[in-house]
């Protein structure tokens, strides 16, 4: 009987500890940049190097861009799947691709029609855009007007492709960051000129 009581108590304690662990272990493994930084990069390769050298891990990325994943507008560097690379290396666990509204519908339908077969199943269509289910986590694609930053979320790795946004759209993005709705410890501005 004492053995039984000890084992029941021990298992109950283990259960409670494991549930608590599922809430604290992941956040404890996330690594951030301190103090906050804003960097300018010219290419996806530079962005990849920036994330690797910053030592960030387990993060959410919010990327304001026209082109998904492999290239930024007008850039003449070799294509690099910087998101795939970052997700596979555990740097990022969730990605938000925010695209200009004027391209939003086109990008979403293009991506849906031409989804990469390595994802095995097609993207999941949602009210705001689509979700790609990647080995490294969820990738959301949505137009700027549908994007509402989650204020409860931890600081994000923000990437802003400067050239593709109208002044009004840029104001909206700046508004997110200024108001603290979208907090970032490492913001990368993609620009042809450093």
């Amino acid at each position, binding site marked *: 009987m004492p*053995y*039984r009581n000890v*084992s*029941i108590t021990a*298992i*109950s304690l*283990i*259960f409670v500890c*494991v*549930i608590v*662990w*599922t*809430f604290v*272990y*992941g*956040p404890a*493994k*996330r690594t951030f940049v301190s103090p906050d930084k804003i960097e300018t990069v010219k290419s996806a390769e530079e962005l990849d190097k920036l994330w690797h050298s910053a030592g960030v*891990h*387990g*993060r959410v990325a919010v990327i304001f861009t026209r082109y998904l994943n492999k290239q930024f507008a007008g850039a003449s560097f070799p294509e690099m799947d910087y998101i795939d690379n970052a*997700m*596979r*290396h*555990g740097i990022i*666990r969730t990605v938000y691709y925010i695209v200009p509204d004027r391209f939003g519908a086109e990008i979403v339908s293009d991506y849906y029609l031409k989804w990469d*077969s*390595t*994802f*095995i*199943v*097609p993207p*999941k269509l949602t009210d705001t855009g689509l*979700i790609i*289910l*990647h*080995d*490294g*986590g*969820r990738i959301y694609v949505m137009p700027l007007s549908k994007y509402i930053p989650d204020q409860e979320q931890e600081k994000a790795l923000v990437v802003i492709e400067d050239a593709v946004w109208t002044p009004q759209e840029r104001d909206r993005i700046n508004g997110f960051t200024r108001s603290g709705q979208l907090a970032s410890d490492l913001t990368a501005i993609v620009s042809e000129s450093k």
Partner: protein
Amino acid sequence: MVMVLILAAVFRLWGTFDLNEYIEDETLHVAYAKSLGTYGTTENWGWHHPQLSGLIVYGTIRLFGDNPVGWRSSNIFFGTATVALIFLIGRLLYPASAVPLLAATLLAFDPHNIYISRTTFVEIPVTFFFLLYLYLLFEYTENKRATLPLAGLAMGLTMGTKAYFVFAIPLAVLYAVYRMRQRGELTSQVIVDFVVTLLMLPIAVYLLSWVQWFGRGYTLLEFVQMKMDSVWALQELNMDNFPNRDYLGAGGKPWEWFIKPLFWGHQRLLSNEEGLFLIQSNNPFFRLLVLPSLFATVVYAWKKHSARELLPPFLFVSCYLLILLARRPIFSYSVTVLLPFAYLALARAVTLSAAWINREKQVYACFLAATFIWCLYMFPIVSARPVPLAPFQPIFSVLRFMGNF
């Protein structure tokens, strides 16, 4: 039985490390394990599967190196140990009968099970963990041994490896509850024991098996979201999603597995008269007897009002229904998880038939000899040993698919 176990190990070990290249899905499994161990991320669209098997393979790779020993040694162990477990379970369910020995022999000498045990397929460890769970649970219900916490641990390891036993796991718990109630021992204390050891402990073990995934920054709420995504994604799968759909079709649809003889595989010809082969089959001489055997054992158990005798057929049906009803293509290696219950039922039918005709020793001797001789014949062509083609022409002439490796 010791001899059967030794031979099971020999057939699973002999020459397994000679083939210093990936066999079939090993190319996916090994990449998955290394990525999981190194970065906590899966590879090749493996995110929706439980991760324990990847961690086991990563562990053996760390131990023995990134070579065939590191890739395959865990399955050799689990495949052999499964033979011992089916024997032990058979002894508890069919005491003082030849069922345990016959069932263990059938599994030990099943050429397809030997083939799968020599690679990295997850069906081998998940079957081992489930049988371990059953054995420890039955030791508690039948022999009153204090093995319930260990059964809960094994249940959690099963859940952390693959989802084949989602119906079979609660079915075994129901059986245990029934047995306790039958003996008048189902007290509130026992119910608490069941909840704690067979619910809370397995959930804890299951969540811990995702340690690498949680280590990528996730929390429990994101885990629930990922599980819902995986249910959605698996329902979206169809034949067009698989680049190797010819091979997928070669193993037969799940409803064919116990009805039609099926042979398929890969070859590497060394000359016009000699080659290496990795032939898979549904072991037709024996597996085609499974469905009639299940019927016979259910009728017998029903007449005898024996829940214990009904359990293996019910476990078979619970796993097979999941596969038959899954709204996605299923590869033939999934049959591995059905074999322990299929062979327990077949062994039971053999003992009942032998008793009926009053020729037990002769029937068992013939059955064991046939199992062993068939295995000896098939072994060279399921294990990539260099063989002359001529003796195996009867098999090659009925292959549904032959690729090259």
